[in-house]
């Protein structure tokens, strides 16, 4: 694979973005709209992430479908305790069973995932903030990028040009390149 990252990244302009201060509901609509956008190539891999921008249009966080679902789940005193006890040496099976019981017993069950209050939450309250090992330079070789995805255990990396995020390199796009390279070599 002789290509470099910028040949395979999805440009920021093709990504679903939303401004800091927007609500969870607006973020979900942004994700839905980008899927309907005829100018954005959806043919290979659909978008599953919304990037959150500050007032300078800099990326400050991202929000996956999992973040949305997690944010919509009810938080009670009981769920907070269950979250806490997961640090106290209980087995994964035990925590899973307690979580399920707590979820089933929750008095907000009827509203779960459609709670109007939750839908008005600000994106910055539940987005994933960016971490140090999340970035890769656009001129990095695709081989190196593939390796970085594995060692950093990530499904995507934010592509930078002189410290500014200009796109997203997704594992699915790298994998497509990998298949092509393997076929050529076989």
């Amino acid at each position: 694979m002789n290509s470099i990252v910028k040949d395979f990244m999805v440009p920021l302009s093709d990504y679903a973005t939303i401004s800091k201060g927007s609500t969870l509901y607006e973020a979900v609509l942004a994700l839905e709209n980008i899927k309907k956008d005829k100018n954005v190539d959806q043919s290979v891999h659909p978008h599953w992430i919304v990037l959150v921008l500050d007032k300078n249009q800099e990326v400050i966080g991202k929000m996956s479908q999992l973040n949305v679902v997690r944010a919509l789940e009810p938080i009670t005193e009981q769920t907070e305790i269950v979250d806490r006890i997961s640090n106290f040496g209980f087995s994964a099976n035990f925590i899973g069973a307690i979580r399920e019981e707590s979820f089933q017993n929750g008095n907000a069950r009827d509203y779960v995932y459609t709670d109007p209050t939750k839908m008005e939450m600000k994106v910055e309250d539940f987005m994933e903030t960016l971490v140090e090992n999340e970035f890769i330079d656009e001129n990095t070789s695709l081989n190196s990028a593939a390796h970085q995805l594995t060692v950093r255990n990530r499904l995507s990396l934010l592509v930078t040009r002189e410290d500014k995020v200009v796109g997203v390199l997704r594992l699915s796009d790298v994998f497509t390149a990998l298949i092509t390279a393997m076929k050529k070599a076989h």
Partner: protein
Amino acid sequence: MKEIEKLFDRIVQRVNINLRELEYDVNPYVNKLIPFNQMVKFYGFYGVSPHHPLSFEFKNSNLAGSYFLGRCRVSNSLLYKSDIRGDELKKEKDLFQYQDFEIPVVDDEEIHIEDSFLIKTLVHNFSHDPETLERFFIKDTISMNYANIHGAPSDGCFLGVFSTVDLTTMRDCVIGNFSYVQAGEINHLHIPPGTVWVRNPGEFNFYYQYPENMLNDYVFLPAGSPPQGMLIDFVEDRKEAFQRIFDVVNIEQSVDVPSSASLDRYSVTKGHTTIGENVLVAQRAYLQNAWLGKGANVQENCFIINSRLEGNDVTAHGAKIIEADVGTMVFVGFNSFLRGRPDSRIVIGEDSIVMPHTIIDVKEPLTIPPGHLVWGLIQDETDLATNSISIERLKTIDSKLTVGNMFFEGNGAGFVAAFQERIHHILDANGAFFNGAEHKGHAQKNQFISFNTIQPYPEGNKKGMFPTIVIQP
């Protein structure tokens, strides 16, 4: 007084460095909490007896109002009204059992306190860490009022008010107010206030969380202010009673004490109090109209008021029993607060276990049936139903149990056996089973302890600091 202030700053900085990963700053909780002029007022004292080892070294430290027994080395530390009890330390050639290992102890164990600030803290028992058998260390640690460091080496930790760490090595941890931890080894953990956690990996795991708003009524440590809450008020209200026993050199005991029992001269006895055979009453214990049956023990900072303990009862460090009738072989764990009222007494049936850090505070009579385990906050019968279980039922649990804010995973029978073995060990160590010849324990060995006092510099830069002192047999 500059030296003592410099030392305080140094300790705070060292603790904060250890807790930087938890982003915890101890400054708001300790700054100006104990006025330095208070720390120069009191003498330190140590016990001398033929039944205990004697080896002390104090260097560059303040030891105001603190008590030492056994083998202890203190350097660059502030110990304010703390009890450092080295009467259960391991001895050379002892064998320490850890899992399948029998590890020989190569030297007499010693308590090492370095760069630490302990306030009204009890240090007792021995290191249960197989990696440090001969040294029970407490280093770069601050512990607040009425904390218990019980068989728990500590490095870089902050212990909140009325917290207990028991048989656990801790590094870089914050232990919240009124939390009890017995978990073997913990690192880089921030334990929230009111956590009761007893874990033996692979065997059982017990966890209870106090409702924070209700706990705050009992124990609360606001930033920038002294500790608050009903538990603090309770202890502070009885502080005066201890004044005289620390001021007077030779004190007459006001009650009859059988020859097999021990009533520490630094304990308070009031009203119609009865001491049975093989009873142990430790220093800083408070008895008022207490009836203590054969083999009962009342440990440091315990209060027994208008109550009857039938016999072979354990009242662990810091526990308080008020207006209660306690059956035989009842264990009341560390720092528990059992408060009945004159017309609403608490009755605890025999062979029951009151978990460490339990609060029973009732305005109606409450009866705990025999053979029950109780925990957490109990203010009435309804609470009792969700905060107790019969020990026989608990023994049948083999996977999980959740009741209210209590979570249990593992083997219930193993959990019960561990507690019962521990209770038996405590009674044995305290001399409850002494038969006139065998099974001597603290009740018999602590009867003839002489106390020597040590004093700090009275003036100058070193005011409040104690000179370097080495005491050997």
